[in-house]
């Protein structure tokens, strides 16, 4: 792979002259192919943030020489390749993006086979002014059934290709680590669970780390799916009784279903949990909590309590919310926000946008385990009008977990569109008019990275910079027994 760069029109022309001299590359004589080139990942016609790492890609067109010119007004980057892999130099890319904010990058791809060059139709990437949060945290795990071996929660700096571990399970006797959650994209307040012997919920607030055993006598299980209250004091948890099933045939290998579930709230100040009959009822199964940005509402999904005769594929969750008074720790009125069951659909992963105007969720045919549902798609609800619209980012395969950037202009979501088994993180831009742009895959240094990478990117969460956490603090705390939380009754 040979890289060449130029930084103004003059230089670019000089470079082209050089190329012409060396390789019989006559720009004017090159026939134009009147279609877009096939590039993998599909990085054509995107809106991209001004701080994203180089969008390296592979040109999937027959040829023995490849040339890519990325231009914005007077600046350009030229990348030349013999195998079709286009690795854009980081420094040049950053400079190019800096000058292209609010403008478009134009990509022109030339392919040569037997010294005959062809030029493909150019495509563009619009560089929008709003940055995406610098870190993307995810759990890397084999997308398996029930076993695990190596796993970890990592933070990827999306402005480059660096990846830092938040916690790896080698540090906690190979136990499962899961359900990482950050308070409103904050790098200072976060939590995750460590399962198994000596397990617990590790909570880090402004550098102080605590390990809690969130299971009390009154609960079905310890905390499972978390959601931080914006004040950083409370964490809403679902508590679930879960079982896996294996399909004898068909597209789905496994199904996971709740036998029962409830919601509780953990007060991290007093290490107590509390709940309310509205979210801990015997008639319903409540799960997937998420707070409104003002902390006044707790959103969650709810289905009728299953019985012995309930078919797993008839359990459908609606979107609910309940008012919450953080000062008095009291719950208020319960509302049905979206009745998915009447459409024979089920809601999972409700996430309110940082401005509180929209709510994104996943809709699938049934149940809570949309990550294995091919039909699972992302939808957005306007919380004022309650109007629901299917997002244009969906594919024929699974779209499931998603999270917002702190500025609400970007969101990241998991999609299994590449191979049907491994989730990959995609970013999409939310325009001022509420429309959503074409999604793009988290870029990697190696354009062929995803082709053979066997792990799945689980729970992608965007986090602001700077993230300077000392992992050793987490490891040390994980070694100690978890502190038991107490159950408290609401006033």
């Amino acid at each position, binding site marked *: 792979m040979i890289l060449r760069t130029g930084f103004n029109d003059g230089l670019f022309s000089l470079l082209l002259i050089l190329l012409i001299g060396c390789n019989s590359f006559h720009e004017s004589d090159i026939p134009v192919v009147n279609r877009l080139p096939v590039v993998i990942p599909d990085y054509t016609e995107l809106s991209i943030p001004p701080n994203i790492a180089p969008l390296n890609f592979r040109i999937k067109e027959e040829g023995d020489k490849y040339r890519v010119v990325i231009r914005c007004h007077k600046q350009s980057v030229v990348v030349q390749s013999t195998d079709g892999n286009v690795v854009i130099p980081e420094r040049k890319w950053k400079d190019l993006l800096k000058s292209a904010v609010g403008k478009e990058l134009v990509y022109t791809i030339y392919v040569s086979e037997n010294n005959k060059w062809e030029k493909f139709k150019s495509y563009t990437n619009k560089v929008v002014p709003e940055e995406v949060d610098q870190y993307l945290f995810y759990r890397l795990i084999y997308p398996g*059934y029930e*076993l695990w071996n190596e796993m970890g929660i990592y933070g990827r700096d999306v402005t480059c290709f660096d990846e830092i571990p938040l916690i790896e399970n080698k*540090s906690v006797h190979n136990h499962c680590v899961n359900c990482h959650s950050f308070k409103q994209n904050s790098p200072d307040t976060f939590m995750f669970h460590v399962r198994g012997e000596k397990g617990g919920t590790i909570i880090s607030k402004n550098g102080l780390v605590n390990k809690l055993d969130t299971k009390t006598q009154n609960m079905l299980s310890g905390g499972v799916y978390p959601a931080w209250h914006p004040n950083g004091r409370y964490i809403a948890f679902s508590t679930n009784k879960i079982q896996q099933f294996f399909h*004898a*045939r068909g597209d789905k*290998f496994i199904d996971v279903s709740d036998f029962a579930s409830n919601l509780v709230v953990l007060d991290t100040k007093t290490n107590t949990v509390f709940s309310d009959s509205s979210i801990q009822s015997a008639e319903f199964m409540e799960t997937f909590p998420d707070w409104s940005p003002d902390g006044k509402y707790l959103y969650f999904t709810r289905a009728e309590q299953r019985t012995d005769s309930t078919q797993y594929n008839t359990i459908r969750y609606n979107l609910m919310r309940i008012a919450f008074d953080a000062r008095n720790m009291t719950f208020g009125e319960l509302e049905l926000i979206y009745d998915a069951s009447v459409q024979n659909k089920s809601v999972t992963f409700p996430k309110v946008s940082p401005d509180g105007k929209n709510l994104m969720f996943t809709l699938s045919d049934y149940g809570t385990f949309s990550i294995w549902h091919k039909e699972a798609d992302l939808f957005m609800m306007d919380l004022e009008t309650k109007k629901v619209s299917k997002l244009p980012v969906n594919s024929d395969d699974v779209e499931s977990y998603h999270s917002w950037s702190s500025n609400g202009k970007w969101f990241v979501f998991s999609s299994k569109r590449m191979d049907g*088994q491994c989730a990959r993180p995609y970013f999409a831009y939310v325009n001022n008019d509420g429309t959503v742009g074409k999604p793009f895959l988290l870029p990697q240094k190696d354009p062929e990275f995803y082709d053979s990478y066997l792990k799945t990117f689980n729970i992608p969460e965007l986090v602001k910079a700077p993230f300077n956490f000392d992992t*050793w603090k987490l*490891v040390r705390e994980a070694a100690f027994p978890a502190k038991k939380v107490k159950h408290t009754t609401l006033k």
Partner: protein
Amino acid sequence: MYKLKLNESGFWTIITFLFSLVYFSLWGQALIQYQNDQHLFLYSETYWQQFLNMPGGMVQWLSAFFTQFYYYYLLGAIVIALLITIVFLLSGIVLKQLKTPFKNSIALILCIVLTLLLQNYENTLLAVLAVIINLLFIISWLSVRRWGVRLILGLLSIVLSYYITGAFYWVYTIPVIAAELIVYRDIYRFINAVLLLITSLSVPYYLAIHYYYIFIEAAYLYPLQTKAYTLLPYVTALIAILLLSIISGKLIKGVKLEKSHRSYVVTFLILCLGVIIVCKNNNSKLNTILKVSYSGKHQQWNQVLNFVGESEVNNLLIPYYTNLALAHKGVLLDQLFCYSQKAGSKGLYFTWEKNQHLKEHGGLFFYTVGYVNEAHHWAFESLVQTGAVAPVLKDLVRYNLVLGKTSGARKYINVLKQSLFYRQWALKNEHLCDDTEKNDQLNWIQHKRSQIPSEDYFMDVKIYEKDLLNMVVSKPDNKMAVDYLAAYYLLSNQAQKLIDKLALIKQHYPVLPLAVQEACAVYAPEIVTDKKVLMRYKYYKESRRTTEIHNADKELIHSFWYYIDFVCPHDKN
């Protein structure tokens, strides 16, 4: 004529190489093939990076690199022989620098310890390579005399040795600290020894907190603690040998036995001792298990039956693969009792145990009877448990192609393309991921798809009878499932249930298979079509009354009746 002149070291170097080569070529085939199936070296940055997050990752990477040559077992034997010979040569240099008497003998003992270590089927080349690297560090440290340089080199080597070989760094640090105290005469040797000791204790501690983020105790042991400490005694022995060498070099200074004939005698005696130890440790039962499971995994059914033969190895892999071989050859119900079935119905399949390392084997049963989704389940869990290795990846390619998930299959093919020896296989099969219509026409895919149940339901996995019954109800023309269900009833002593399913069996067999007829002879003699079976049963009953039955001809011992009376581990009905 040119006369080849060999000194003593040269002579023993050749002997070491030849002995290792002959030993691993003749007796190491099963072990080498097993190891090959447990590792897959990939030429990719992602693969390399995954080794860097634990101490000793680099030596693990190197071990995986050399293990890739096990693809051809003779090449594997050559690699092992070469590495052991390198250990002999390097330890010879160390011992020569220490002026240790009997240096060839001691070097040979080191090699014998490593050979013994490699005999354990779980042990890789990790220890051999770690010893080589640490011997190189020791040689470089011994080559300097000035205390300051010695100290700096010693300290740097500790850090490097720990980073490259992990807890194997003790092979370097302990002998070096001992040598510092014993070999050198200067006053600084005490300072050096203390500083070396402090550094060797503090490096893992520091790196555990600031780099690896692992518990402190793990930092001092990794990767020695893996595989249930099987490496630990060997490594301790290696360190002890080196330590004794240093001490003996000092104590028996000046004794020039190297050039004497006595040295040859001592070395020869040690070599003989080594041969005896190594041969005695050669476990023929384990070899049978490894050979059978290797052949079974690679679906070499004749080989499986050859290796099993008359062996009475108590390991579930043996009946599991024997029965799979019989099923694939279409003679499961004819020859079921020709082979040992001491495990009863448990010899037909593996039950799902979370922590059991049998996932790589268990999926083949499900694939055989048409539960491709479940076969995928087992194969994938095996990948999670033991890592991406070639047999599992190939299985996953196959399963995904049958299930029409070509993009899933392509991902596994892309992994195999990054290897040296499986690249060709991957390239050859890559086209199957492009053309789904063409795939649909392939006989093996068509056949397997025809076995998949027509309706979806949840697998039980723990009660296999239920899964097999569901299958034969859904796909009565699935002969493999019918065979296995019948075998299950025969082996679990539930012949009455078998009789109830005779109509189903008859769909696949114009003449009832031998084992089924033998069961019928007991419970429904009117169904038996082969009069010889009834006569044999009569003869069996008569023989049984006498004590001669165990010495009766094989036909009687290899019968359903004998199995039920004397072998079956299940409750008698």
